[in-house]
């Protein structure tokens, strides 16, 4: 790993002031540190935001669950409030990585990184999340731009993620057996009025599957999507799963999610 300067910011203001074109915010470091160790990324400055108190914690209101960006996965999975309000979000957090990752990795880090097979982005899409940054509020649907790409500007810091509490929801993942990232993960959430079917792992970026959303909004039953033949042309192919297999898994996992709701 190349040498770098370590800073610990006391608030968001200081953090964004320290930011430059050769810096990165450091929360859990579960992606940043390995990337640096492998020489895939180098930064002059790492700005640690874990000590900013305001960025950690979980608040639940009648309509939403708001989670601070530096809140660790284990805190989300163990939270009684989250379990009660959105149980599927708690179980999603419980299925991320391994105990070491869950005890360091944070929700803000996961979302800012926008790995195409990460779990949390699908929750943001399915639960109509609002991403609160130190500068503005961004709807999830406009936040995830592409592979490892988000709407965040340089120096912009995620402070919290606000999830809309659905009537029913479930997240079902077919994990990569090696890394346990999602080969395909499908988050189904039934809100008053419409249904979201957020898919991660299948394409270069998380997306809401319009075809399945429409079918399920009409009839919220797994039979309404059974046998659906999804277009696999934009889906990922790698040594663990072909696009064809992924397309099939999206439907299978969506059905499982509906059945589990």
């Amino acid at each position, binding site marked *: 790993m190349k040498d770098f300067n370590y800073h610990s910011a006391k608030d968001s203001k200081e953090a964004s002031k320290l930011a430059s074109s050769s810096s990165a915010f450091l929360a859990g470091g579960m992606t940043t540190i390995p990337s640096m160790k492998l020489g895939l990324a180098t930064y002059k400055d790492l700005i640690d935001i874990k000590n900013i108190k305001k960025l950690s914690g979980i608040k639940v209101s009648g309509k939403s669950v708001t989670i601070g960006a530096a809140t660790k996965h284990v805190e989300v999975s163990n939270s009684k409030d989250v379990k009660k309000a959105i149980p599927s979000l708690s179980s999603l957090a419980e299925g991320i990585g391994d105990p070491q990752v869950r005890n360091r990795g944070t929700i803000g880090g996961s979302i800012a990184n926008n790995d195409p097979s990460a779990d949390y982005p699908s929750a943001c899409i399915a639960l109509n999340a609002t991403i609160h940054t130190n500068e503005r509020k961004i709807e999830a649907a406009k936040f995830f731009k592409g592979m490892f790409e988000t709407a965040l500007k340089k120096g912009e810091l995620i402070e919290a993620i606000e999830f809309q509490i659905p009537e029913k929801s479930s997240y079902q993942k077919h994990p990569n057996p090696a*890394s346990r990232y999602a080969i395909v993960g499908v988050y189904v959430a039934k809100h008053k009025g419409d249904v979201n079917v957020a898919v991660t792992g299948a394409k270069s970026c998380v997306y809401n599957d319009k075809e399945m959303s429409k079918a399920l909004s009409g009839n919220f039953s797994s039979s309404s999507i059974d046998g659906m033949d999804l277009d696999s042309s934009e889906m990922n192919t790698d040594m*663990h799963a*072909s696009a064809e297999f992924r397309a099939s898994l999206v439907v299978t996992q969506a059905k499982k999610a509906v059945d589990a709701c």
Partner: protein
Amino acid sequence: MASLVGSRVERKEDKRFLTGKGRYTADINLANQTYAIFVRSPHARASIKKLNIDKALKSSGVVSILTGKEIADDKIGGLIAGWAIRSEDGTEMKCPGNPPLAKDNVNFVGDPVAVVIAESLAEAKEAAEKVEVDYKVLKAVTSTADAMNGDTIHEGIDKNLCFDWLLGDRQKVKEAFDKADKVISIDIINNRLIPNAMEPRACVADYNAASEEITLYTTSQNPHLSRLIMSAFGNVAPEHKLRVVAPDVGGGFGSKINVYNEDIVCSWAAKKINRAIKWVAERSESFLTDIHGRDHVTHAELAVTKDGKFLGFKNETIANLGAYARVFGTVTPTYLFGPCATGVYEIPAAYTNVKAVYTNTAPVDAYRGAGRPEATYTIERLVEKASMELGIDKTELRIKNFPTAFPFKQTLVHTVDSGDYVAGMEKAKQMADYKGFEARRKESEAKGKLRGIGVTSYFEACGIAPSAAVMSLGCGVGLWESAEVRFNPTGQVTVYTGSHSHGQSHQTTFAQIAADELGVPIENIDIVHGDTDKGTFGMGTYGSRSLAVGGIAIVNACKKIVEKGKRVTAKMLEANPEDVEFKDGEFIVSKSNKKKTIGEVAFACYLPGVRDEMKSPLPEGDEPGLKETSFYDPSNFSFPAGTHIAEVEIDPETGHVKLEKYTACDDFGRIINPMVVEGQVHGGLAQGIGQALYENAEYDETGQLMTGSYMDYTMPRADNFPEFNIGYTCTHATTNPLGVKGCGEAGAIAAPPTVMNAVIDALGGQEVTMPATAEKVWKACKNLKKSNAKAA
């Protein structure tokens, strides 16, 4: 005194391991040490046009940079294949040179070309990036099946063929096949695996200019062998000026048998720069450069009568050696594979033909089971297929062809001294509730799932390798083992063993054996191993040999101690040595109340002038001291055997294979410590099931390792397994005084065919290659659905 052999004695080594007090090679730091980083080839096959170290030498903290040129100039030898194999046509095998640092050509990704030595690890890394190597990239050969048609990798080795070996009689086999009612044939792949010991390889080399001695601390399963190879073939230093220490070693599985490039380079370089050098592999280096395992492509056939009697067996295999032939590289796909390929069956005629090929991939060598998993996979997949095609129950078909009497003269080589395969099968069936399977299958079916059951009956040849047996095969050296039992004057015992523990619990099990033999409390016995300065010689640990060979050497040395003790007691108590009996640590003169404890005898042996006794207690002809040595060369291999049964449930929508039940019923002969044996069985099963369902080393066409990290190489985890159902039958080995057989590899040998037979059973007989990943199984499920629809 109650016998300790057979009881669940808690592991003596656990305290230090569980409290972080283990001392591994990477824990060793020497004064004024430097750090080494190896510059490795990023190409699978290339010639080196130019290597420029000028910029790197100017980098901060650099002490020295050495390349293939310097090591060749110093006439340091390369890495070797330990066993000579002859082809069917009588020609010798063909092995290329394998210099520790490549000078002219590189042959796999990770092949080292230079070493950078610096004051700190960070400086060594930075300088290594500045070493400029100009490669001419050549077309790589990576496929096992097509290697013989690829470009010639090593000059003078046609078709990339190391040898074309035959064991058995083709003519007899032809005659047997001519008589057959039916021929069952199968094409299988034994997938390449990466051993993945928890502790990556490491070494620390030191040079003492005063004594002109090199000390190498290294992650080895066999320090004496490493010293021998480095001295005799590597020309690093004469044996008396080279000390090799293998301290705590965190798992080997065969991957730490070899002397590696880094051991030789660091030892040689430490003397050159007159400073200590430390090197610790990063995990990505382990993936690329540790030896890999398996990698066979096999076509096999079984000739049968219509009522299920086996008549003949053919085995045509291509074995991938990787870029170079290493220590056990050539014996693993031949003598450790061929003789076991006819399995636990009476088959009148058989042959195994192996073509061993070079490719531009990491060298392939012995990995847990070494040859026997490949053999068992071949015969057991074939037998299971025969049961399907003949419509005979898979357990009945096996029993029908089991030997009826022991010793069992197996078709190709081995004479199996003991066993009861029918008893093992019956017990396994009971443990697995074999009868209840059909009901469970229906329950799964009702849930929309497919359920399958798979069986494997195996035997293996352990305790490698008795000189007599090895010589009769016309190859190599026998592998005996040594032990030295030393009493201190005050009665504690130090046992030196030439075998090496890197997870096998020798500190406990060997102490149990010595405690029983000598009647000394186990806490007063220390087991010492892993240092060439502490014992005369040892062959190390692999091939389930530690107990069946090394353990017996300990017993024999203890027996010599007892014999001397009897003579000394007789002298002290004025009796005839023949009248002295030894029991529970006491020498008793029969028909009297006169006795001496072994502690008293030891004291007398060291301090033979005891007060009040005006004469020496030592009989004429006996020297003072109490220390005995034994070199034990067994008369034969030992032959553990057993039957394993697996049950899987498959979700046809996702292709997910859930291992529902796993039953292992093994005959390991006498068991020294059931808890340790369970640990060995569990570990072996995890690796065997890992091969069947998860693990796979994959290279792309250019020879880049696609599965070079845990992001892509699937190591099985605890949640992949059900609770293992483990049981034993017991027939004692007749070829050694303890009646022991060996248990370290059984799980890795039996599990792959057991699990795959279950998967293929669930899939209605459709062939799936290992590992049975979700996508492969999903596709097979779709085909099954189609063919079922057609049939309906």
